[in-house]
């Protein structure tokens, strides 16, 4: 499935986190009560649905093999004109990026420039590595062009590989390189950071219980509306 995904631009917006994006999520799939926690569809390069929207691939295809076959068949139709992906796949901001990286148990690469142009230049340099055969799908990325501090994590100018806290509440900088680092130094830093990143097995219910005990709660800007989740737990 991961191999089949490489022919696509894969996008995973975070539900309930952005009002503008919520319109797209509703277009893809919306239940009777509005947005649900998850939504899924295959889209054409202009964002038009190629398949009916649903809550998940299993709702649409049932079996992994059927899903992979659908991915391959769809990709084949676009293969002739498809160009390589070059943009760095980033998350919206540091808070969300830490949360997503924690949930996926991936390292987070923070790119910080002195201004937007500098951050974009760093991101272009990093993107080549991010899409390389060796490193694709290994990490999440976020781009900053201002000094940002979140839960005592204040990334310096340049590129930092971060081990997120299990709840996305800050993280530890594993490796940092300055903005002027060349491609070779950057590649070495990423490889070292990814190697140092620890995947700590977690158990769902214990993770939730510990959050309750510590009073950790995630606030989303959009009210949670999934009818499959009891109202008292939203």
């Amino acid at each position, binding site marked *: 499935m991961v191999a089949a995904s490489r022919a696509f*631009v894969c996008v995973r917006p975070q539900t309930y986190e952005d009002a503008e994006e919520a319109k797209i999520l509703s277009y893809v799939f919306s239940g009777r009560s509005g947005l649900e926690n998850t939504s899924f569809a295959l889209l054409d390069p202009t964002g038009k649905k190629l398949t009916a929207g649903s809550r998940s691939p299993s709702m649409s295809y049932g079996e992994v093999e059927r899903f992979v076959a659908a991915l391959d068949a769809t990709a084949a139709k676009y293969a002739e004109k498809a160009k390589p992906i070059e943009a760095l796949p980033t998350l919206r901001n540091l808070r969300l990026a830490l949360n997503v990286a924690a949930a996926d148990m991936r390292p987070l690469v923070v790119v910080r420039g002195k201004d937007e142009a500098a951050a974009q230049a760093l991101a272009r340099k990093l993107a080549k590595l991010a899409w390389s055969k060796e490193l694709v799908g290994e990490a999440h990325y976020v781009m900053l062009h201002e000094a940002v501090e979140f839960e005592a994590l204040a990334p310096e100018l340049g590129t930092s590989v971060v081990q997120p806290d299990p709840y996305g509440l800050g993280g530890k900088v594993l490796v940092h390189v300055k903005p002027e680092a060349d491609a070779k130094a950057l590649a070495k830093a990423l490889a070292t950071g990814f190697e140092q990143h620890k995947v700590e097995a977690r158990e769902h219910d214990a993770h*939730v219980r510990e959050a309750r005990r510590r009073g950790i709660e995630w606030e989303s800007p959009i009210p949670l509306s999934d009818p499959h989740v009891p109202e008292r737990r939203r």
Partner: protein
Amino acid sequence: MPSPIRLTVALLCALCTRAAPLAATQGAPPPAPDSERPPGPLPIHEQPTEPGIAWFGTWSEALAEAERTARPMLFMSAAPQCQRVPGVW
């Protein structure tokens, strides 16, 4: 024949994490919607064994890149919290 719940778990897992497809089909990580989650404690993840899907995190950037590259999009939204607890899908 795997149950529909198990398939949902496997597919969501493979889409939302970097876990290997084989591990997923063996029923490892279960970030399934609450209504589809079997009762009792379940592991969030098994040790990843291979890289995962390379996700764009925002619609606008993904759309721009899909238009530029003429590639189709695999769209899967998810809430980065469970019962308002972060660090889990």
